[in-house]
């Protein structure tokens, strides 16, 4: 049975590596091969979901690399494979024949393989390895068009931020080992003694929050939008950001065991959902809006993990994955065809590409959490569990749901406006506005079909979670004390969603024409709560200053060139240089200079005059005599 699991992992990773190395040589064949591999993975995923294989290999001394497909990971493995296949179907449309498709498809498959390993890992080392490989592939994918330095800088920021959070996993592994859990098995983490359990849990929580772009790490997601459309669709909507939430869902017993972790996670999820929802509302670009909404929706999953409702969280994850990947694909297609992602400029985009537009509308409605659709059902499940925990959380969830409705309707409103009169003028205007790359080529059929399929999935998934039919789903996920949402809660949330949607639909036309007097709060929200500026001020700038000071100290110590410091222009350094040349190597050079002075002094007695030799010799011997006589 374990061969199935190894195949499931080996196929994407192997195919991805092959395609990556091939680069441009098989540029034409790359999409076909990539799609074949993705389809194969999907088939294997379904098979492994049914058979639930388990495999493990020796890795370190006493630590095994264990993989297992259980209830939770079965669903996710299928979801990941499905979304990957859908996105790869849409990718050729996005990437022209001139692009290095081998590299793109290779990286996407590598990412899919890494996500599968993350989902199925049962011990910490494979989880950590897959986690880091995901970060690296996301760096490569965001910076795919590396000719533009700003895109690469965005990729760097994303990678460094996620890696900073990933340090938590290293910490967790060390703490587990210290706490006596030699095997580093995830389920055994609760057994760690004393303080080490808290440290392990803290490390895992930080890593999960970092990966899922929760507060305070969410700013990297806004940079991640610089990547190609399909990348955002796969990574930054369905899989990578969900990995953090999935980890918290799986480790709920540990969160409860430590006592403080569960409420913390729940409240973080809730606050993120609300705050990032507000940020989404304040955005003017479609992809930034969708990115912020992703963070807020993942906030719901983290809330579910905090309150201990794996089935609700998973349902939310699935529904959101379908809806958001559809929306991102559509946004990406529009970015390539219309050359812009600014909402005002996208006015009437639905009418221009009807099929694509329909998919976008369906996805947006699902995202808003309107009654019959899947996200509404999932949200109710989560809110029910939250209400059982604490009313405050329930209120927070409801507010976040309302805001969610708000921003989805905002996107819908702009996109469904009637086509403005000067149809073609609009095209040229939007040409180079924000890096739209190529001419206005209509999105081919290969993009529209996946969008429609995903949107359909987002709509109908809700049915599976209806109270009557939620039994089998909850069985698959491995049950646990669930709070089925009673009817009045579902009705209340539906009402809230509808009210918020209506209010937004009514208010938007007024604000669209009103003069732009953005209040301070709005600007703050638009700038992603200026988290990045805070992070840069608190961490990055002092790190660089310290680095420059140390390097100057070391350089001055190494070649002692004071002019090097002056050229550096550090006033602090000039003060230190004036003090003295104390550096590390300075001490050594002082010794060398001392020896030089000693050397000159030692040569002085050799004057060449014999009588001075005589005198010195006789004095020398008399001194020795006195020493021998006196020192007894």
């Amino acid at each position, binding site marked *: 049975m374990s061969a199935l699991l190894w195949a499931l992992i080996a196929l994407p990773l192997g195919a991805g590596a092959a395609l990556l190395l091939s680069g441009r040589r098989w540029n034409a064949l790359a999409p076909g091969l990539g799609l074949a591999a993705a389809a194969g993975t999907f088939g294997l995923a379904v098979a492994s979901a049914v058979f639930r294989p388990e495999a493990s290999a020796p890795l370190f001394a006493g630590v095994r690399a264990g993989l297992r497909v259980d209830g939770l990971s079965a669903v996710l493995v299928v979801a990941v494979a499905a979304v990957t296949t859908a996105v790869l179907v849409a990718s050729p449309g996005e990437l022209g024949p001139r692009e290095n498709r081998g590299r793109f498809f290779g990286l996407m498959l590598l990412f899919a393989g890494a996500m599968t390993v993350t989902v199925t890992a049962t011990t910490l080392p494979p989880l950590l390895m897959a986690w880091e490989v995901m970060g690296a592939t996301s760096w490569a994918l965001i910076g795919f068009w590396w000719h533009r330095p700003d895109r690469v800088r965005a990729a760097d920021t994303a990678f460094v931020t996620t890696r900073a959070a990933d340090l938590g996993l290293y910490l967790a592994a060390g703490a587990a080992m210290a706490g006596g859990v030699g095997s580093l098995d995830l389920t055994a983490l609760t057994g760690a003694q004393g303080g080490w359990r808290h440290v392990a849990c803290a490390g895992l929580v930080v890593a999960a929050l970092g990966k899922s772009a929760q507060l305070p790490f969410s700013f990297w997601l806004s940079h991640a939008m610089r990547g190609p459309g399909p990348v955002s669709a796969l990574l930054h909507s369905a899989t990578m950001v969900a990995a953090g939430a999935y980890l918290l869902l799986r480790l709920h017993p540990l969160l409860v065991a430590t006592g403080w972790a569960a409420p913390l996670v729940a409240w973080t999820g809730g606050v993120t959902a609300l705050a990032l929802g507000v940020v989404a509302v304040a955005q003017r670009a479609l992809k930034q809006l969708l990115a912020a909404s992703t963070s807020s929706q993942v906030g719901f999953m983290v809330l579910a993990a905090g309150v201990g409702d794996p089935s609700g969280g998973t349902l939310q994850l699935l529904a959101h994955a379908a809806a958001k990947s559809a929306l991102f694909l559509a946004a990406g297609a529009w970015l390539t065809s219309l050359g812009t992602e600014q909402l005002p400029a996208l006015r009437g985009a639905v009418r221009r590409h009807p099929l694509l537009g329909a998919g976008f509308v369906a996805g947006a409605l699902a995202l808003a959490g309107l009654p019959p659709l899947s996200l509404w059902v999932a949200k109710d499940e989560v809110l029910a569990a939250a209400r059982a925990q604490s009313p405050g959380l329930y209120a927070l969830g409801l507010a976040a749901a309302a805001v969610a409705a708000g921003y989805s309707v905002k996107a819908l409103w702009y996109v469904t406006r009637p086509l403005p009169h000067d149809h073609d003028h609009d095209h040229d205007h939007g040409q180079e506005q924000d890096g739209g790359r190529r001419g206005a080529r209509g999105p081919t059929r290969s993009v529209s079909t996946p969008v429609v399929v995903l949107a359909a999935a987002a709509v109908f998934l809700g049915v599976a979670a209806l109270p009557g039919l939620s039994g089998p789903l909850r069985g698959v996920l491995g049950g646990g004390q669930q709070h089925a949402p009673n009817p009045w809660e579902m009705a209340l949330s539906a009402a809230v969603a509808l009210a918020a949607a209506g209010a937004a639909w009514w208010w938007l036309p007024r604000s669209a024409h009103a003069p732009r007097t953005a209040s301070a709060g709005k600007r703050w929200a638009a700038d992603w709560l200026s988290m990045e500026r805070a992070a840069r001020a608190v961490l990055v700038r002092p790190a660089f200053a310290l680095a420059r000071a140390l390097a100057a100290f070391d350089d001055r110590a190494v070649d002692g060139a004071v002019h090097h410091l002056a050229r550096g222009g550090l006033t602090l350094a000039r003060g230190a240089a004036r003090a003295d040349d104390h550096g590390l190597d300075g001490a050594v050079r002082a010794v060398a200079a001392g*020896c030089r002075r000693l050397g000159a002094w030692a*040569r002085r*007695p050799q004057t060449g005059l014999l009588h001075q*030799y005589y005198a010195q010799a006789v004095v020398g011997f008399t001194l*020795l*005599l006195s020493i021998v*006589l006196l020192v*007894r």
Partner: protein
Amino acid sequence: MNENLAALLPETILLGAAVVGLLAGSLLPRRRQWAVAVLAAAACLAGLAATAWTMATGREQTVFAHTFAVDAATGLGRLAVLGGLLLLVAMATRTVRSHARESEFYVLLLMSGAGTLVLAGANDLLLLFAGFLLAGVPAYALAAFAKDGRGTEAALKYYLLGALLGTLMLAGTAVLYGAGGSTLYSDLRTTLPHASPALVAVGSLAVLAGVLFKAGAVPAHFWVPDATDGALAPVAAHVTTLTKVGGLIGAYRLAHQVLWGTALDWPGLFALLAALSMSLGNLAAFFQTSVQRLLAYSTIGQVGYLLVAFPVAARTGLAQQSLLFYLLAYTVTNLGAFAAVTALPHARTLEDYRGLARHRPALAAVLVVCLLGLVGTPPTGVFLGKLEVFQAAVEGGYTWLAALAVANTVASLFYYLRWLAPLFRPAPHEQPSAAHRTAGRGPVATACAAATASLLLGLAGGTLLPLTTGPLLR
């Protein structure tokens, strides 16, 4: 009253060859004076054979009423001196070829060698002084062999300092005779402890002055730089190497037989001498430009390392073994370096040695082996010697001295590398410069032989070490 002349075979061979050489020199025409060189070489080889025979058959004995001891120390001394003489003769063939007094050069060399052997084996103060004279006076003459301004000045300084300190040594002998009633070490050993310490101190220190002059240690080192710089390269080699071997073995025998018994703190004095010699030798060598003067200061430094074995002589058996082996390795390595200098008569300053590796790779390799050997990098003989000396020092409780020696070794690296690094730098002009013209195949072959011997000593040192552990005879 053992009168067995056979025990002094090597010394008699050398003196006999000297006399025959002198006579032959006056008879042979100038073109065929080189025969004396062959005679000298043959004498050295015969001496080596005799030494090997005495050491193999274990015939340790004291002759002529215990005034001369033939034991491990003498054996090693003979090996070093005779081997050194052989290298010197081979090295000097080109320098003194067709010189008016070519044969006298070799005769003086042989006599000075014999004197050094006497110094090494003397078991009596008077015999020690006789060795001092026999080793010293021919060396003064050799220093002025070239008869140029620099040579005569070098001889002058060497002679005058030798005369003053020789007289001091004689005075010391007289004082010790007064204090101990005899000049024989075995008698002095019993009588001196009862004599007044002040008298013993004055007498012993005066005698030590003479011996330290021969070794070139600090208070009596003033002649070393000037004599080495002024004299011909082979003579400089002889003066700084062979006389040092005789001086140090004589000093060790004197200290071991006589001084340890007295109630004075001689180990402390020797430790001080070692520290002073080491430090002054290495520091003064830092910014030398003349090659021979740099080597002179390096030999003063090496005496410092050799003296480290003296203060611990009473406490550990390792001291004698380390001293004798280090002396042997030092002789070979130092003569190798001087042979390379002899082979390049026109290269007098460090600057002249720039880019030597390109045209004279063999000489460059010899310099690398010998100079890094003098520093003590493995696998040369001096590394093993230094290892033994450091081990003896640490075991004898003088760890601070060993640490100072380590510091000095690192300091010495600086001026050796200032000489070595330019060898490999690309020469400014393509065709070999005038300075790189060698003085013929003789010195080059000697240099290579010496360098290989130094490496062999390093690698196969283990076989020689047991020879050095025999007790000193009363």
